[in-house]
């Protein structure tokens, strides 16, 4: 051809089309899904919820930027993953935790649990849970000092940090059962409803099953998560708790209590479903969910800690590569 001024077009390998999905959009969806729980946290725990969420989000984003800068890489904070980690870390903290300790958690989550491994996509463990466990081990007293939700001082004073403390329902049950005392509250329909809405002692983001389920419905609709992990996780807890209850009703709480108390909903819906640290295939995700459920119940029933969700998920994170290895899908054209 003779046309000299023919333009040179973009040349690249197929495909030339893309769904338009981005990591940023997925993270944004998770943030949107967490909004009901953020509102619930604020409603139940007032200023302290806002304080912890702000501190953790800012702490995580700043730590991420600082780490990336030190490593001489692009900042990568616009993928919003540090924001998600910040919110989830705050959700895993008791309302009275001092700000500096929360910041320590942010540094552990981002610097040690994430950036050391190479940043987003490379972390073997859920960063927010690593931070929670680090805080639990480092500051056991502060991490287990609870203040009741709807405390009258929640909007007026930061002082109730030193005020009357209580225990989480899982704590009370564990103490009562180990010492042989009666359970200090009666578990009935109205109590279960109170727990479902979120009016119970606990970490700021874990209390309201209602808010967490609303957000999870959004994530399912947006196809950011599938039912496989939460479904198998919760089903295993139901089955395990049900069997224990049937075998020995005096020493075990009903299934509904195990579902609503503690961090199970937060863990099953938002922490265990973290894409990077959970298996790739649906089959693998089912195994993983069952493992999380079993470990949670074993720790709750026989472990040293009243709550086992964090440890259960972290342990299953550790075996995720193994699960991936053994749940390779059956390839087209290969005989089984």
């Amino acid at each position, binding site marked *: 051809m003779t046309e000299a001024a*023919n*333009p040179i077009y973009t040349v690249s390998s197929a495909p*030339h089309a893309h769904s338009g999905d981005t990591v940023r959009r997925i993270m944004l969806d998770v943030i949107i899904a967490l909004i009901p729980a953020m509102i619930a946290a604020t409603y139940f725990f007032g200023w302290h919820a806002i304080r912890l969420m702000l501190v953790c989000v800012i702490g995580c984003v700043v730590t991420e930027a600082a780490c990336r800068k030190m490593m001489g890489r692009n900042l990568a904070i616009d993928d919003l993953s540090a924001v998600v980690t910040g919110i989830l870390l705050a959700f895993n903290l008791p309302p009275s935790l001092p700000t500096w300790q929360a910041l320590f958690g942010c540094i552990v989550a981002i610097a040690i649990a994430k950036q050391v491994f190479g940043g987003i996509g*490379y972390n073997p463990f859920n960063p927010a849970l690593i931070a929670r466990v680090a805080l639990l081990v480092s500051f056991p007293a502060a991490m287990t000092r609870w203040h009741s939700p709807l405390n009258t001082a929640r909007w007026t004073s930061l002082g109730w940090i030193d005020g009357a403390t209580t225990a989480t329902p899982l704590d009370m049950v564990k103490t009562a059962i180990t010492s042989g005392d009666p359970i200090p509250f009666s578990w009935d329909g109205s109590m279960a409803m109170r727990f479902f809405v979120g009016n119970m002692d606990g970490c700021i983001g874990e209390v309201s099953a209602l808010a967490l389920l609303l957000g999870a419905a959004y994530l399912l609709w947006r196809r950011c998560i599938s039912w496989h992990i939460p479904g198998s996780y919760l089903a295993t807890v139901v089955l395990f708790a049900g069997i224990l209850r049937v075998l020995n009703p005096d020493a075990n709480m009903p299934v509904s209590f195990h579902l609503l108390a503690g961090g199970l909903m937060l863990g099953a819906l938002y922490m265990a479903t973290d894409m990077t640290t959970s298996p790739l295939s649906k089959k693998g995700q089912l195994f993983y969910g069952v493992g999380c459920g079993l470990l949670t119940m074993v720790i709750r029933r026989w472990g040293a800690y009243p709550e086992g969700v964090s440890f259960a998920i972290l342990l299953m994170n550790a075996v995720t590569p193994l699960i991936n290895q053994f749940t390779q899908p059956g390839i*087209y054209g290969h005989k089984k």
Partner: protein
Amino acid sequence: MRVTRALRKLRGSIHPQYFKGLTSDCPITEMPIPQKLYLSMSQHLGAPAKPIVAKGDVVTRGQCIAEATGYISVPIHAPVCGKIVDIDSAATPAGTMAPRVVLETDPDNTESTTMSPLSDWQDRPQEELITRISEAGVAGMGGAGFPTHVKLSPPSDKPIDTIIINGAECEPYLTADHRLMIEHSKGIADGIRMMCYILNVKSVFVAIEENKPEAIQAMQDALANAEKIDATVCILPTEYPQGAEKQQIAVTTGREVPSGGLPMDVGCVVENVGTVLAIAEAIEKGIPLTQRVTTVTGHIVKSPQNVLAPLGTTYADLVSFCGGLTAEAAKVISGGPMMGMAQPNLDVATTKTTSGLVLLEQSRVHIYRALPCIGCGRCLEACPMNLVPAAISYAVEGGDYDRAESLNILDCIECGCCAFVCPSSRPLVQHFKLAKPKIILKSRQAADAKGAK
């Protein structure tokens, strides 16, 4: 004649935006003969054809200008009368260099050389028809360009019992096959009967995606009175890559082509509707394959159309026939956007496999800026072969081709579903295309070394 639905779902699939409405209602339009035709000698899979004309020769329409160079090769014919003005070498749409014959056309000369029509084909031996198809230069027009006479001559230990006619056209934008089925259903039906006769097969599936109801109806009507064959129009759900050979065999017959095998390993021959029509024309009318329908489309094309153009028409001529562009093109794709090849300019010319020419403006061009894999698992769900693209991609990126091979990279059909869905925009199938030839070469070398010992 029966009508059925797909036997099963694809193992993985995607639902891209199709944009077929741009051209699906545009009847096939024959474009005026361009001044010059640029005929690549490598329009098919296999050895390039060898020119048998010299610069300065005057040729007539249908005259053979290049002969096949081996069994897996086909000849090339002059689409119109004219004079050979140059024989050189140029890039094919696939980007590889191949000899090229430049023909200055003489549109007023309507003389033509045809082969004798074999209208009594049912009384002729199969070998004669296969030879005719080979002499007419027929190669797969769906995209791969595999010589048709080879497909129709399976070895005796691979009995064929089913023919699948691929009218899925699952690539976004393209409507050439769609229009062919509506406007040339009778010719396609004739071609189907010829294929059945050649392969001595009764059972035929015509596979069409359900977004082409007119084509489904047309093929039903055309096959309604087909005698001696057992034809089935199989309506497939609209999802990509429904038209991929292995996937189509699975959804129509339930059979799975074994890894590394061919459709004939499960008794099937798959042929694109355009190729079937070319078979009919070659046998019944003695016309060699010298033209094809190409969908020239894109939101920036002034009047997108399904253009019937002689082989060797430059993309520039196709675009100007369609009224030019309303905005600057940023990417030009030969074929569809999922598996087509991006072209550096419009100097490239059509071949027997050019099903479409898609022109994209800047805003529709996706730039793959890769982030690390976040393990979302979407590529696993999108993969129609059930591979784990995320893991294979990391193996390739790390240069660990042995691991890539053990993760069955060679089963990849390069459909692009994984890269399409990846939220990290990882160039997944791009990685596989890079590694596959190297892995194949390495295993061949290993086999050779073993043989030498």
